[in-house]
């Protein structure tokens, strides 16, 4: 299967991160007195790292069904953004589509959103390969941690930083891609790149960083994600004229053609 072959190298960073985080999760659940099958089961059906770690506490506290539902929704709210970004990419993927949507974690979104699918590969199969591989890593890591967690002896302190480097690298990838696009458009228009052009073409990235940084300072590390999403959405809506890539391209390339 050529899609699997093409997808595997792209998922190696996730392999490293998920196996390690999965092991941590498996150990945490078992050392808190849960049976070995429970972390594996939640890795299969829940499959969202941040919430699974929270479940360790939730399952040990008093029974609050409404709170569990609300917590799951709040912690997962960022997935709504992923879904909106993947709407067009996941169109026409047929019978694997429900699984693609179910398995849309932070990392799988990252890989599939920035995927350059090779010529001749089926889109649906490629996205499915990435999604299924990623979940395999997560389930395998969790099972390893639950079964053999107490055997690990080498110092893994700091290994979880791999997730940070992954998001930073994807962010930078997005950044240089947008810079390349700007250069292309400006070349077509025959003038120099201005600071305003740069601000506009990186509007999405800058809004994300600034909006969430402001909310982190205002609301603190445990409650800033929802306000961040609201603020970023508002800013993107308000400044569409400045930030929409389609409008930027039209303004730059269109202007160049007009002059020539």
């Amino acid at each position, binding site marked *: 299967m050529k899609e699997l072959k093409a997808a595997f190298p792209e998922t190696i960073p996730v392999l490293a991160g998920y196996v390690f985080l999965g092991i941590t999760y498996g150990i945490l659940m078992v050392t808190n007195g849960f049976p070995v099958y429970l972390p594996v089961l939640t890795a299969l059906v829940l499959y969202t790292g941040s919430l699974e770690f929270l479940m360790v506490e939730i399952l040990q506290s*008093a029974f609050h069904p409404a709170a569990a539902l609300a917590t799951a929704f709040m912690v997962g709210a960022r997935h709504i953004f992923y879904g909106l970004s993947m709407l067009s990419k996941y169109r026409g993927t047929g019978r694997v589509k429900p699984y693609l949507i179910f398995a849309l974690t932070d990392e799988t979104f990252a890989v599939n959103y920035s995927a350059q699918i090779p010529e001749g590969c089926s889109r649906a199969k490629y996205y499915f390969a990435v999604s299924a591989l990623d979940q395999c890593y997560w389930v395998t890591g969790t099972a390893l941690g639950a079964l053999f967690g107490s055997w690990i002896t080498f110092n893994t302190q700091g290994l979880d930083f791999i997730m940070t480097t992954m998001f930073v690298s994807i962010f930078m990838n*997005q950044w240089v891609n947008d810079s390349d696009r700007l250069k292309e458009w400006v070349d077509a228009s025959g003038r120099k790149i201005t600071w305003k052009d740069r601000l506009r073409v990186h509007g999405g990235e800058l809004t994300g960083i600034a909006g969430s940084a402001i909310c982190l300072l205002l609301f603190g590390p445990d409650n800033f*994600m929802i306000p961040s999403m609201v603020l970023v959405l508002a800013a993107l809506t308000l400044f569409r004229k400045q930030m929409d890539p389609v409008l930027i391209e039209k303004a730059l390339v269109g202007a160049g053609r007009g002059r020539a």
Partner: protein
Amino acid sequence: MTKEQTVITILLAVAGTATTRFLPFLLFPEGREVPDYVRYLGRVLGAAVFGILVIYCFRNTDFATSFARGGTHGIPELIALAVTIAVFCRKRKMVLSMAAGTILYMILVQVVF
């Protein structure tokens, strides 16, 4: 919690998570025209989300506590961040920048700080 309560709690957590993942696709199923505004969001939200996620990764980094009190001012994180960015800009290979940043960070927190 009893066994039944555990099962219900997990099922509700699954329901809450699935709602966040399926909502956009239920609102805009195949065949229905996606409004222009939502397509615009699709073009810029991806970039914005990665910005948010970068900040999210640093949400628990302690920049305030001084060395005298056992803190590091987030210096290992900032050094590893700078190296990750630098390696990516030079080589444009994600695996390389991730390996460089992570290994350096591990050395910094285990050996140096």
